């Protein structure tokens, strides 16, 4: 059913997300999709800003980012309302219903990512006044880049309805978990070596923990994309099985 070479509109049709007698309905759905992605863009910016504030020791930026969280919350409420309105007035079925359901879930996860970004930004603002460690947060920076890429690709797969990208992206959550473990071990060593660094190390633990959570939320978004495209709930299933199943389905004529 899914061929990688299909054009976007063809794929939309294949996923039964776009043919309607009512053009207005189509426009409504498109607008909701664009709004979700705009909200995603806001979250991406928050994440990038929070990480920059931490790494550059910029307390002003950290404060500014933390203050911006209300925008993300506002968008969640407005998209939620719009989805309820579409459910009530259009009574969508099949692919459209899946898209609306996936949207409602996605915005919850995006909003949580926003909350985690706020946490990171506040800690960054506090840490800015303290002396920076010798490694300039190298590991944190690395983990930050992976997390940002993951959020970005999750949103890309949502925009392109690309289930394959969603699967690969969901898999990179494991990398984040491993990095998280590594930084945790490293922090423990630091704390044992120099008890004066405990406070900072604890703060850093909070930051990494927040990023690990962001990875989980991004993975959820990927799962909603798979659900939206294939109509299959893949939560709590191993990714290998999902991939196999999808492959066997697309191999069928």
């Amino acid at each position, binding site marked *: 059913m899914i061929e990688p070479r299909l054009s*976007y509109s063809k794929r939309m049709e294949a996923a039964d997300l776009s043919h309607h007698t009512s053009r207005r309905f189509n426009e409504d759905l498109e607008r909701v*999709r*664009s709004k979700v*992605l*705009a909200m995603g*863009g806001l979250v991406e910016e928050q994440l990038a800003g929070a990480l920059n504030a931490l790494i550059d020791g910029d307390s002003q930026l950290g404060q500014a980012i933390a203050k911006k969280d209300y925008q993300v919350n506002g968008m969640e409420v407005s998209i939620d309302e719009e989805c309820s309105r579409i459910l009530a007035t259009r009574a969508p079925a099949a692919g459209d219903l899946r898209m609306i359901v996936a949207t409602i879930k996605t915005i919850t996860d995006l909003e949580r990512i926003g909350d985690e970004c706020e946490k990171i930004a506040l800690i960054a603002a506090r840490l800015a006044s303290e002396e920076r460690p010798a490694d300039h947060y190298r590991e944190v920076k690395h983990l930050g880049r992976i997390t940002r890429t993951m959020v970005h690709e999750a949103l890309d797969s949502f*925009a392109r309805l*690309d289930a394959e990208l969603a699967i690969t992206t969901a898999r990179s959550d494991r990398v984040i978990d491993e990095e998280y473990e590594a930084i945790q071990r490293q922090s423990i060593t630091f704390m044992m070596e120099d008890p004066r660094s405990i406070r900072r190390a604890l703060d850093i633990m909070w930051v990494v923990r927040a990023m690990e959570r962001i990875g989980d939320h991004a993975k959820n978004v990927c799962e909603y994309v798979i659900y939206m495209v294939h109509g299959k709930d893949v939560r709590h299933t191993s990714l290998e099985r999902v991939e196999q199943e999808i492959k066997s389905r697309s191999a069928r004529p």
Partner: protein
Amino acid sequence: MSLWWWLLARIVAALLAGLLAGLPFGHPAAGVALVASVVVARLLYLLRTTQRWLRGLSGAEAPEASGAWGELISLIARLQRRKQYHKRRLMRLLRELRRSTAAIPDGVVVLNPQGEILWFNRMAARLLHLRSRTDVGMRIENLMRQPEFIRYLRSGDYALPVLVTASVDADVWLQIHLVPYGDGQSLMLVRDVTRAQRLEAMRKDFVANASHELRSPLTVIAGYLETLGQDLDLDPALAAPIAEMRRQSTRMTGIIEDLLSLSRLEASGDAAERTPINVVSMLEHLRRDLVARLGQGASVQVEAASTAWLLGDEAQIHSAFANLVDNAAKYTPQGGAITLRWTSDTAGGHFSVQDTGIGIGPEHIPRLTERFYRVDPGRSRATGGSGLGLAIVKHVLQRHGATLEITSNEGRGSIFSCHFPDDRLVTESKLPQTRGAHD
């Protein structure tokens, strides 16, 4: 022409021959009919071959025929050849055009009125991470999700380009310019400006760091000069030089302070915050400070025709207003008058400083806000300004969406006015609600 006659003559001759051939057998009509049917059969055959040729069933070769029919076929063939030649030329031109657009070192994306991608070149694919197979027909804002870009796209004002960081790598800066054309389509030009951006950041950092580093040694020098100046045992011949050194070190501190506040203003980027400021009381403070400095005889007036409050960054607005007031004081001789005004109307709020000083020549006015610009180098050294005051004013006003207007009459005085937009004003009675809305 002659061909037609020739054909007609041939048919008539053939029919006559048929008639004559039929005569001996007593059936002249049968002879004519036989010949006529042969002629018709031949015409039908030619018609069929021509039709098949035109339909393209029997290859591209034109069918062989002579006489008028042959002429017809060769005319058609020539027409076709010419058409094909033009078509090939156009195709080649189009391909060249496509290739050259694809090879442009800047990214190019063609958008339809709904903001959906119609076409993009290789560089755009690289800079924006677009995929040619899947992304044609997608809305650009679904893939370019930077809030800054979405705001630009929706604003409808594409006079200037917008700067955004690349979505995957925050260190890459892209300059994006939308150029509308045709029926609502637009051309999106994308350029990698990371290098320029980095240089700009380096320049700002340099100014900030250099000013910061210069401040501490200067403090030490100024401290010793102050002690020396109060030393009574010192050779009286040294008193004048030390006084001059103290004056200059104060001036240098002023310049460095101004440089630092300028670089802080540049670093703060976005629009200024919106704290309510009581302008009237600020002007009253400025007046009191100025009178204290100039002595009781000075004529400084405040004319507040409006009680509206201003939404902005209080410290910055204060420094901008103070700079304008200082300027007026510096260039107004004793006995002159300085008036501070605050008015508001439907267009917004207006703050102005009027003096009866020496005025400025019209040729200098456009350049006044440049850093270190001097109208009269000798004079400004005597007044001890940093040369950065108006640059600071300009930056502060820019961050508040305000504009600076300077009118001046040489020898009679000048008016410096700041015009703030309406959305930065708030009446006193509405203050509590405004605060609530921002929490």
